């Protein structure tokens, strides 16, 4: 049960923690359009 709660909380924190990666444009995509 504790593990389940921890997993859910980590899942919920994901977008906040990973936002810099989500926001940053993909390098390879940029390269192909350049």
């Amino acid at each position: 049960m504790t593990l389940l709660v921890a997993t859910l909380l980590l899942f919920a924190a994901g977008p906040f923690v990973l936002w810099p990666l989500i926001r940053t444009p993909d390098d390879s995509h940029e390269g192909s359009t350049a």
Partner: protein
Amino acid sequence: MLVVSLAPAVDAAKYAADLGDVTLAYLGAGALLAGLVLAAFSALLSFWAGWTENGVMIQVGRRAFYATAAMLFAAAVVLETALLTHDFSLAYVTEHSDLATPIALVAAAFYGGQEGSLLYWALILGILGSASLVASAALGPRLAAYAAGMMAAILTFFLVVLVLVASPFDVLQITPPDGLGLNPVLRDGGMLIHPPVVLAGFASFAVPFSFAAAALLAGRTDAAWIAHTRRFALVAWGLQSTGLVLGMWWAYHVLGWGGYWGWDPVENVALMPWLATTAYLHSSQVQERRGRLRAWNFGLVMLAFLLVVFGTFIVRSGIVPSVHTFAISAIGPWFLGFLGACLVFSVGLLAFRSNGLKSNAEPAPAVSREGAFALQNLLLIGVIAVVFWGTILPLVSGLAGQERVVGAAYYERATGPLFAVALLLMAAGPLIPWRHAGAPLWRSLRWPAAAFAVVLVVLIAAGVRSLPPLLAIPSAFAVAGTVLYEYARAAGRWRHAGGGWSRALALMAKRRRRYGAYLAHLGLAVLVIGLAASHFWQQEKDVTLQPGEQVAVSGYTLTYTGVQNRELADHTELVAAMKLGGLTLEPARATYAGLGGQSLTHVAISSTPVADVYVVLAGTNSDGSASFRVFVNPLVTWIWTGGAIIILGVVLGNVGARRAAFVPVTARVRSAVGAS
């Protein structure tokens, strides 16, 4: 489904209620486990991203740190909810609260026990660490990433302990109808302010430590890290100063032995990091102004944190006898391991960077501001050494076969001369110019010298012949004289330059760091006068009185009028009445029947700026008489006033101050960093 179909309706409701209780425990434990994963992730990622200067990953690591702080906050909210709703399915709630305890103290039980106070420690580090990272943009991404990594690593340790060894969310197999309650000594208003401040102070030393270690790791040994670290070192110092004074105040008002400082191990371990940080706040100026004492400054910040970890180990492992009893628990070896790791890491890092810490500046003469700071630092380190060895003597001598303990006399004899010289230095230091001293120095020293001489003559004329008060009190007045002279000199200079008093005040506000520090010096002088007077001139008398009889102590006459019993919610009180002029003092003894008849003394104090009359009810007899211990403590209120002035000086000197401008050193940084 099976449960619902087989069980009667009433049991289903109970099952749901039990599940609701247990859910709170799972929520808390889950938040701690998620926090542990995030902290470890933040530590590893921040170090790696700082090393490779990967701007995006630095941000992810930093956000993982913020998320760790959020998880700690969530766990804290869960624990507080469990306490306030009297959820006795949690072992922590059962052990540290009960239904009869007033609700404010139930809330305070959050930090009243081992597990909860560790959670509080980690929470404060999460919050202050997040604040320090938000404010760290100007330091450059690599240093800030390493600092995030350091703080996340420290939090990882705390979360490992909280998850594996000392969880506040452990569930009891059988839920009791009521809890065991808080220790009676902790059932006091002081419980609401002293522990949270002193624990926050302890936690806050990790922030300057992390930035110092990060600066060394990043090879940034210039003064840029000092400006940032100093700010958080001041937060730690301010919190610890407040915690120490509040602790003294609480001990004085609650413990009933007439004093406020007993050189108990817990007091000692709170004092040592404070002393190390006091030294750092002064020596850091030498690096800022003159580029010297680089290695020393790093060493002091690291020492302060190591002393905090050492203190936490000493207090919580229960290996040294102390009045502050945390239950002996399994966390001792964990903290010993952590202390060892921090020590090896700090010493190794300083040795590794030692080449880059050499100063190119020319040496300063001994009589200069730099020299004064260096001497003050050595004196404070001396005090730390005295206190350190006194504290661990039982441990060391126990290992050698015979346990020895030192008392207050050892500490007073050994630290007294060091404090006396430090005090004289405090009077002279602010008047000694940087780099060199000359004729102007001796001219300006005449003011503190005059203050010293006048007070010395007054004391001798009043019949004082003992050397310690004849040294301490005039020295404290000399410190005050220096501060007032500095204020007067600045005000006069600016007033004559045009603009009058308002302009002078505005200019003083502009240089608030300096004049705030002087205010803190003034507060310390007031505090020292209170300490010296109450320590050297305390009067004490033990008496047994029949109703109507009087006792006179140091010119104060008290009349005992009788005793009565009072029934309160969670205890009964035997209250004696003593008339002091128009006042009635009511010293009492409280007995907690629910706690196996534990009893506790309630001191009665009449405070004036001149002296406190402090009455303790020792006991009552069948013939109607009562025994008392009466103290007259001169100038104790000066201690609390001095403490308040120190904090005021720290706050006025730093709140709203402009940030120092940094010169970015790391140019090879990706543009994504700092964009958020």
